[in-house]
């Protein structure tokens, strides 16, 4: 696994499980992953938590054949950049047949196992996406 300690993963677990990011009430920009400072307003920003609908579209994607450590059993897998309807983009796996993938296609979120670390015996869950 691209290893991550339990506390490091857990710290942002809510954001990972429920697609919770931040919204700046000053400039009205949405952020996912969540940020502690608005990059546009910097110290003038006012951030609050925001739950994204998860609806989005594929900006670009790839089919990974040579996997990162911990993902070997999943190859080939589709990795994509999803643009959420509220504005921000994120990187996630797309649970779909590589043949069906298209730039611009609509996707929705699903709660899935991301991977597991054999040494640490830890299973990581989070949000992946599926075609609408």
């Amino acid at each position, binding site marked *: 696994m*691209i290893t*991550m300690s339990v506390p*490091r*993963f857990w710290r*942002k677990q809510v954001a990972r499980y429920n697609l919770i990011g931040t919204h700046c009430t000053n400039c009205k920009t949405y952020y996912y*992953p969540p940020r502690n400072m608005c990059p546009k307003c910097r110290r003038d920003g006012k951030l609050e938590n925001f739950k994204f609908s998860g609806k989005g579209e594929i*900006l*670009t*994607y*790839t*089919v*990974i*054949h*040579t*996997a*990162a*450590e911990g*993902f*070997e059993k*999943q190859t*080939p*897998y589709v*990795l*994509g*950049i999803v643009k959420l309807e509220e504005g*921000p*983009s*994120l*990187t*996630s*796996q797309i649970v779909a047949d*590589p043949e069906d993938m298209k*730039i611009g296609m609509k996707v929705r979120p699903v709660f899935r196992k*991301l*991977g597991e670390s054999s040494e640490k015996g830890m299973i*990581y869950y*989070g949000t992946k996406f599926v075609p609408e």
Partner: protein
Amino acid sequence: MRDVAIIGVKTTRFGENWDVSLRDTITEAGVGALEDARVTGEEIDAIIVGNMSGGQFIEQEHIGALIADYAGLAKELHVPATRVEAACASGGLALRQGIHAVASGLEDIVVAAGVEKMTDISSTSASTALAAAADREWEGIMGATFPGLYAMIARLHMHKYGTTSEQLAQVAVKNHANGVHNPIAQYRNKISVEDVLRSIMVADPLHIFDCSPITDGASAVILAPADIAHKYTDTPIYVKATSQASDTIALHDRKDITTLAASVEAGKRAFKMAKLTPNDIDLVEVHDCFTIAEICAIEDLGFVKKGEGGKFTEEGNTAIGGKIPVNTSGGLKACGHPVGATGIKQAVEIVEQLRGDAGKRQVDGAEIGMTHNVGGSGATAVVHIFSRDR
């Protein structure tokens, strides 16, 4: 601010060098550059070294001190040694910091070096280590690899601009053809477009021959104030510009996935500082960690309009003898990519070209050259411009 010159250079053999350690390879580069400049140890004011991840690749940190020690510059002379890191742009950054030190007047003779020892661990572990240059918490954890991130850039470039797999492959074909004539290159064999397209798929649409390899190697340059450069060499090469720019760490946060805005900005800053335009550049070493990266680089630096890099390459404009020779060293693709060393190696290639010492790779009449070094998927870009004339 003082003008700065490069007075000595050396790059070691790049490749899978099981017989040499990190400390051996960087010592070879450093000593070679000092000999080239005819500088003695007593004259050295400082060492700056680029190294991405001694910690992950050989479980060794404190690389600066290690190098000073093994170069014989620590125990008696106590020369200060500083390591800098910006992932694959660590070498370019070391050069830039060295230039700052000399230009400021604080130091006179500075060794700017770069080194990476990547093959002591499995290539899977090396890929994982490299993935740390991206956002571990929001890209890596989802299964992103470096080839994967650049594959997503490639996919969108193809979609938006009609760039083809053949055009991407042509970058690798051209860089392998240049690597044939570079004695230090990791790969010195010619390949064809068909070879690239038939090679195994790493991250669709990038094949293994679209990727730079895992490499060991080191490179070093000696910097001096321009005013005293002629004391050491008949052919000092002058630094006309040094620039650097940042962008978001994660690819998904960029304004346009197919543009490395840090490259655009660093390029503009460098041209402004040197009072030059892309038309003035005789050759350029760009950061082709993947074939698509070279296409984006020549677009982002302004050598060709956005979207036309593939066609421009296919027409032969970037080959030696073309409009703007790109990666005469063989680039990261064929020369190899020991991540911390690459930015320095690029400068060494330009120096050899501007001195007229590049043998069969020589670009006729080369007067002004440029280097472009990228960290991660584009979060850092470092650009330099060099000239024969002060």
